[in-house]
């Protein structure tokens, strides 16, 4: 009797594990099918955008500096895949003459309950030379990200979000772009390729169109901002976040600079 009941409990346990695996496999398949035909995550239908008077809009721009000796770019060893022929320098801290690139700048606070139209044009993320281009990307919630593979090798694209849904898909060479969306706001959402462990980039998902990423000269520009009091956030993947308050009047053009130091964000 005891043997029989232990057999039964063992069988039930194994069946339960199989069922869990099957359900995970099925949900994975569904996700894969969904992603090839339609965007991964559908944001809830957005309410009509709050009108902004184009005659009054302001611009905020500036430069982000790195204070101190610039860290030497870490070397990447791409030897494990002969198809990888990109520049072998990491992009986690890119400093040129004291100017800091790849800082995500966005209006963190001050927009109130305004809503905005989601751009119909997708933003592009390209895998080229076994690196992501751009390294830091801004996108609105619900906006399509078009992911391309320009390399002669297979990549996998694997976002590891905190607030959005995680997915992991491979993309062989010469295949159609993947189209993805992110439903919820999330800053510095890491995306990596598990086949090439040095490949990492960050997607920043925000609800407003008021964002920018600093270029190699550390410059950014946010246009079309309605007059008001705002908190501008400067976020770097390694150096952390800095916030600054700014008030913009109609047709104003304000300069807001920021500076990061080595060791910040740790």
């Amino acid at each position: 009797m005891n043997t029989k009941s232990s057999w039964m409990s063992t069988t039930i346990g194994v069946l339960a594990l199989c069922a869990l695996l099957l359900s995970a496999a099925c949900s994975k398949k569904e996700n894969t099918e969904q992603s090839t035909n339609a965007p991964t995550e559908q944001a809830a239908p957005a309410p009509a955008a709050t009108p902004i008077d184009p005659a009054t809009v302001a611009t905020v721009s500036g430069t982000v500096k790195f204070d101190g000796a610039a860290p030497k770019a870490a070397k990447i060893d791409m030897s494990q895949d002969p198809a990888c022929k990109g520049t072998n320098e990491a992009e986690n801290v890119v400093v040129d003459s004291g100017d800091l690139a790849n800082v995500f700048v966005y209006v963190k606070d001050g927009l109130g309950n305004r809503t905005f139209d989601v751009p119909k044009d997708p933003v592009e993320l390209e895998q080229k030379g076994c690196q992501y281009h751009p390294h830091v990307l801004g996108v609105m919630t619900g906006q399509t990200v078009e992911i391309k593979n320009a390399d002669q090798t297979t990549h996998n694209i694997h976002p590891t979000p905190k607030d959005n849904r995680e997915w992991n898909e491979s993309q062989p060479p010469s295949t159609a772009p993947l189209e993805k969306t992110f439903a919820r706001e999330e800053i510095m959402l890491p995306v990596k390729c598990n086949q090439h462990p040095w490949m990492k980039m960050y997607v920043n998902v925000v609800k407003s169109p008021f964002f920018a990423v600093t270029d190699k000269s550390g410059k950014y520009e946010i246009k079309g901002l309605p007059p008001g009091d705002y908190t501008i956030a400067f976020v770097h993947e390694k150096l952390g976040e800095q916030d600054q308050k700014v008030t913009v009047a109609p047709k104003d053009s304000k300069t807001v600079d920021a500076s990061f130091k080595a060791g910040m964000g740790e």
Partner: protein
Amino acid sequence: MRALLRNSFEAISLKAIEAPYNRGHHIFATFVACATFLLIIAGALVTSNDAGLSIPDWPTSFGSFSVPVLHGGVKYEWSHRAIAGTIVLLTVSIAIWTWSIERRRWMRWLGIAALGTVIVQAILGGLTVLLFQPPWVSSAHAAVAQTFFCIAVTIAVFTGRRWVEEQPRVEFDSRKPSLFTLALLSIFVLYVQLILGAMFRHHGMSWWPHVANSVVVAFVLCWTAVRTLAVYSEIEAVRRPAILMLALLIAQLCLGFTAFITRVAWGKHSVQPELPMVISTVSHVAVGALLLATTAILAIQVWRHVPVAFEERVPQAETNASAA
């Protein structure tokens, strides 16, 4: 009044049934154990190279069962899957073989237990991929891997000529805690250490619980080894695993320190897994598996050769009657 009754270990079923030594069976069991050790190294290479999700589907690889292009992380992940598939087939074979030739009933069930464990392990491996490596699933996968390795090693030991044909030298242990208790405690702290290490490697926990518990592991294993060598060094079957356990413990502590330096201190800002970290971490996992298996063998040999002597309370009336 108490009468000290020595428990004759001969009565225990583990040794009660005579089983003929089968050389082929033993060699095959040893081969399965060695192949499992190779699988543990392959699994550690996957984790250390951050290649766990380089193949996004399971049980297929990129939608197919054929060999994919083995570049980047795919070569680690696919090799791990290929070796794991081979181990499943080997385990089915050893379970069937054991069931068909073994006279010892518990050995037949040990073969089935190995098969059950490897199936659970395969399912955990699949869940790790499909659920994007949740730390608890990946850590369970790491812990069950070493459990399976221990089962494979014990099957190899139990089918060996020495185990089957020897007349064990028995010395009763009346100390407290008994050596058998210490050996079991050693296995327990090693399991805790294994889970803490796996949780750290899979980003489910900080490094310090694993480092803190290493002090406990070192203390308990040294206590066990010293007791064995100080009191029962003349029994070769327990002396040898005790010495090996001590040597592996020292090696493991050194490797753990090296892994800590290369992963936590040096590797903090590295943009990809670097070779010193990969080598030290994989070695740490491999020696950890050997240490756990050696400790399990020590516990088994202690159970066989150094059984616990226990006092049994005999009712006063019975004692008086026998005295009369």
